[in-house]
């Protein structure tokens, strides 16, 4: 499988669990089984990994995209500033997908999340 940013599933991709504030593999995080909100994965595009200790994926608990972004604001402030502007809006030239659907076509940042969902942040197509 090839991700949108060109990395492959076979590549080792460090996962950060924000809920405990340190790098912990999701599979071994017992907190997740007790959480009320579903555990989801945020896929971080390559250019932004420098802002989250190199992590390609972040594992967090959130029941909406908005809640996931709020979690990022608290736990990964530098990364968050790249994704959302000062007003809290997702930056204009970024797209946020839940699995394969752009949240623009769902319920925006109020799109609900289910266990195992993958939230992908991608720069919009641009150029010329």
């Amino acid at each position, binding site marked *: 499988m090839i991700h949108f940013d060109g990395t492959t599933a076979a590549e080792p991709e460090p996962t950060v669990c924000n809920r405990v504030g340190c790098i912990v593999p999701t599979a071994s995080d017992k907190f997740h089984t007790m959480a009320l909100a579903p555990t989801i994965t945020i896929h971080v595009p390559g*250019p*932004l990994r420098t802002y989250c200790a190199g992590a390609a994926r972040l594992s967090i608990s959130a029941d909406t995209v908005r809640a996931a972004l709020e979690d990022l604001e608290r736990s990964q402030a530098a990364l968050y*500033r*790249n*994704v959302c*502007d*000062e*007003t*809290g*809006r997702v*930056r*204009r*030239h*970024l797209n946020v997908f839940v699995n394969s659907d752009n949240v623009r076509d769902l319920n925006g940042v109020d799109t609900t999340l289910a266990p195992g969902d993958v939230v992908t942040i991608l*720069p*919009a197509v*641009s150029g010329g």
Partner: protein
Amino acid sequence: MADRIILTIGTKKGVFVADAAKPRRSFALRGPFGPGVPVYSTLIDTRGTPRLYASSCNPFFGMKVLRSTDMGKSFKETKSAPAFPKDDGRALINIWALEAGGGKKELWCGVEPASLFRSHDGGDSWDMVQGISNHDHARKWQPGNGGLCMHTIIRDGNRVHLGISTGGHYLSEDGGETFRASNQGVGAGFAPDPYPEFGQCVHKIARHDDAPGRLYMQNHGGWADWTGPGGPRPDIGVLRSDDYGRSWRSIAKGLPSDFGFPIVVHPHDADTVYVMPLEGATRSCPGGAPAVWRSENGGESWSRLARGLPRKQSYFTVLRDAVDIDRLKAPALYFGTTTGQLWIGREGGEQWDCLFDSLPPIYNVKVAVV
């Protein structure tokens, strides 16, 4: 180490650095630095060990400030960039001005939407300057074609002059705590009132340490033929103040156009000032023949400097921050074009040569002797 001339060149695709030994025969170029995104402002900070700064306008991931501590061999992001408070409602669009402040590490930064920020630690943290950013007029300013930008910051003791497009000239006389619009004599061509209190499309302001109180301004001219309400506004584009910017008068007579973006002052002669007149409609030099124009008497008369520049069929634009002049005894001018050429005007602009011919579109040129 012998003096070197260093240039920072902000472009559509990152910042370049060029340097040369004192004779300025040839410049070595390195870069681009940054993630290939527009750089509208740079600063060569010569306080102590020289540092270079560049804004980085990332359309995807927001604004960054880049800093180099090795004379432009590498750049790294500072710990943070200016940002509006969360409850302000505004979001940063671009960084248009970086200037050295007091002490060794203070920086001032003008941004879009027009606001002012200050750093006390060399760009790692920033505070919004409330006196202008939340001025009563701030929510009434309108964006020009380039956006609503604060592009000029001039410090003169306790005075601070700001240029805002379109907001006009704002003056502080208490070190930046409070500001007032100071635009008497500064015309506006895009409003029924030709001389409003504020809202003028100021393009650039310059001053010289040896002439206290004197300022030069390139304003948005090109309104001599306006026939609508308020009537024609000839010669509002190039102005001079002799009272610290409280009032302004035209010095545009003798220029082929009063429209243009940059204005710079000779480093050793406050009476010598340079502009680059452009046609208002095309933003290119009249007749497709580029020229810098120089006054050696404070704007009373002007002469054309074009030796070595193309004589025809050149339609580039030179933007507001794309001209600078070095401080050597016989200073050289430098200008960058929207077509990616960097020109040097030796002997104060008497002889022009193209240093680099195919850079990305150039937004900003700064020079220093280090």
